[in-house]
């Protein structure tokens, strides 16, 4: 058991390392010369050569990679090429905003999806099941920016309950943040809930066909108990994986929503940095996203392992 968990963790670290290579290599093979781009109109050959030396671009890529990774591991992502500020300091509030929105959405979406999924399985084929399925399917089928604009039109403009722009600032208080980022959160919830709910429903239903479920009914247990106590524990592994996938999406895939609601998250920073060729920022964002994605999947796999009684309690 411990061996399996450690092996999975080691695999996660390896994957993260591979991702760092890809990120570094990816930013190196971008077309055009970085020094030239930075200097723009002042790009005389002498200036470019000086700049290249200053940026370290005249050194071998492997050497620069090792240096970059070593610094990144200590939390030092270098200086922004655009404004010379420290990348880590620059990105920290952005990362906080992204995580805040992700946790906010996850805390609403995951329990809701599990409950709806279990209920849909319990009432399979009945009105509740059909309505829940159709509603979540509709929500997942709409592009997220469209959902976002629909919410802005109806909830923000027509009803006036929440602001159109989620422009939180570092000095915004906790409840202010909850209020300002309500609509982006709601759009994210609508986007991710369907996937998790349908997986919960499907895996609970698959378990419901087992002989031990029939046995539970033959013991005279009420249906909700059979579903929650007998079926759900055996349906957890696939559910955990889908939840992790969606949580990862909340962190790495929210660029569109951030743009729609002008929410100052990490995704926006990355888009800005790419357009300005601010390579250290792009690399840092890439690495943070990769780490979030890999960590969440690793945790999910480990939890799925732990949820298996055969592994938890060997013979």
């Amino acid at each position, binding site marked *: 058991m411990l061996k399996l968990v450690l092996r999975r963790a080691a695999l996660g670290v390896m994957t993260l390392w591979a991702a760092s290579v890809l990120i570094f290599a990816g930013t190196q093979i971008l077309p055009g010369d970085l020094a030239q781009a930075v200097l723009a109109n002042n790009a005389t050959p002498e200036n470019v050569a000086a700049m290249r030396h200053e940026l370290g671009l005249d050194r071998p890529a492997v050497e620069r990679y090792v240096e970059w990774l070593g610094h990144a591991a200590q939390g030092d992502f270098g200086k922004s090429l655009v404004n010379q500020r420290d990348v880590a300091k620059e990105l920290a509030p952005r990362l906080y905003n992204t995580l805040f929105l992700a946790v906010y959405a996850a805390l609403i979406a995951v329990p809701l999806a599990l409950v709806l999924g279990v209920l849909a399985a319990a009432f399979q084929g009945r009105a509740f099941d059909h309505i829940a399925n159709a509603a979540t399917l509709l929500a997942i089928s709409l592009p997220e920016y469209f959902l976002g604009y629909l919410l802005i039109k109806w909830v923000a403009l027509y009803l006036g309950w929440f602001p159109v722009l989620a422009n939180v600032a570092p000095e915004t208080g906790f409840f202010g943040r909850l209020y300002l980022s309500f609509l982006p959160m709601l759009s994210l919830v609508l986007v991710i809930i369907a996937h998790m709910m349908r997986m919960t429903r499907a895996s609970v239903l698959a378990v419901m066909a087992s*002989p031990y479920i*029939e046995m*539970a009914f033959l013991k005279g247990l*009420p249906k909700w108990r059979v579903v929650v106590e007998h079926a759900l524990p*055996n349906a957890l592994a696939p559910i955990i994986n889908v939840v992790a996938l969606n949580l990862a999406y909340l962190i790495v895939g929210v660029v569109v929503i951030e743009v729609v609601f002008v929410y100052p998250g990490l995704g926006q920073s990355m888009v800005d940095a790419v357009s300005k060729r601010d390579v250290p920022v792009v690399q840092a964002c890439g690495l943070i996203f990769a780490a979030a994605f890999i960590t969440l999947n690793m945790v999910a796999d480990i939890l799925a392992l732990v949820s298996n009684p055969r592994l938890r309690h060997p013979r």
Partner: protein
Amino acid sequence: MTNAQTLLTIENLRIEAASQAGGKTVLVDNVSFSLRRGEVLGLIGESGAGKSTIGLSSMNYTRGGCAITGGRIVFDGENILELSEAGNRALRGVRIAYIAQSAAASFNPALTIGRQVCEVAVRHHLVGRAEAAAKAVELFKALELPDPEHFGERYPHQVSGGQLQRAMAAMAMIAEPDLLVFDEPTTALDVTTQVEVLSLFRKLIRERGTAALYITHDLAVVAQIADRILVLRHGKMVEMGAAQDILTAPKEDYTRRLVAEREAATADAFVSEGEGGREAVLTLDAVTASYAALPRVVDTVSLSMARGDTLAIVGESGSGKSTLARVIVGLLPRESGRLMFQGKELSPGLRERSREELRRIQMIYQMPDMALNPKHTLLEIIGRPVEFYLGKSKAEVRARVLELLRQIELPEHFIDRRPTELSGGQKQRVCIARALAAEPDLIICDEVTSALDPLVAEEILALLRRLQERLGLAYLFITHDLSTVRRVANTVAVMRKGKVVAYGKTAEVFSPPYHPYTELLLDSVPEMRPDWLDDVLAARKGRVEATR
């Protein structure tokens, strides 16, 4: 009919299932019987006879797509078909409890055994949690489970099949029900385990005076436990009577056939021995094999068989008999030892063997359902090896498939059918035809009859025998069923924990002096005498320990 002693009365019961075509299939038709308190009624019949359906209906439960469409089920003076959902729940588990065929499948793998055993008592508020746990320990003791104080803390995968089956009896008895429904509770167990479990079940219901419906396809098993027997076929009653009468003087033709088949199974008639001095087909010399990290599953096995021979490998689950088959066909490469086939050494692995070598050894599996691709027609299934091994043209393949269908005694127009349109016995015939299509010298039969009903199994064995006489095939029979061995094999090897403990002519291995383990196996095959179980238990004391 109604008096204080009557516990359960079923009158004109009719249960229907919605069939795929949209119509109705009658599963149980006009079945009536009654059961007194403390009485055990055996429900006997082949698969599809409606035994389990009737058993479950006594708890007012039907499986998906089925419905009780006629009749009355009166339990303790009350028509349970009129019960509300809450009324059903108060009945199930508390007054009527169910014991299923496979405990491994009927225990929730995610919860401890103790929790599941106590569940009925706790959830129905019969007793408190601690009291239920104490009661469970008491039942574990009565069922002779190891370490009864802590048995309940274990998870289902941590105990053996026989222990789990007994734990299911504890789970059923926790609320002290008036009626137990046993649904083939020992069928999935090894013979030696079956004896123990059966005797404990009997002790439990006799001591507590619980009435029971005992569902099984095995007349000899039901003879040990039932007061009366009801024979069912295709959902209809064939005959009902005292156990002794049904077993010794069956009135109906169908019952007579069942009894005769069962008697033949334990009769001491052996297959004639093959003539000596024929060409050896397969020789194993000190063959050893194992799965990664596990102890040896096949341990220095040496065997030999000639053309026209039937060698039976017998043993209980985990003895390594199926692994031996995988080693012979090359699915699991052997670690050491020699494997000679018609005088030539075979490579350990499947990939290193030539197509010609592969063709000569074919295999038939236990589950014809899983061995046949449901999307293929019989022409494709049987024609594929003809094409693959013998390189015949389309027209030749079709002609050959038709010939094979005749050999396995299926109508020629079946050639365009798919496995889903066939019965279990017909599917196994198709598997035989597929093996024959390669024109092999040796066919390995891995538990080929154990998924079939007794009468169907008998037909399959007879077919295999006829084919052997006509084609001079050699069979390697892998089975846990000693009656099959007696009827088909001229040589037998008894396996235990990967080793061959007894090997020789069937008549010699199966007559005194026995190897102690062979004797234990032989003694464990149920006989139809009602006092058989008592005799075995008496004879077994001490000897079980000696062979463990």
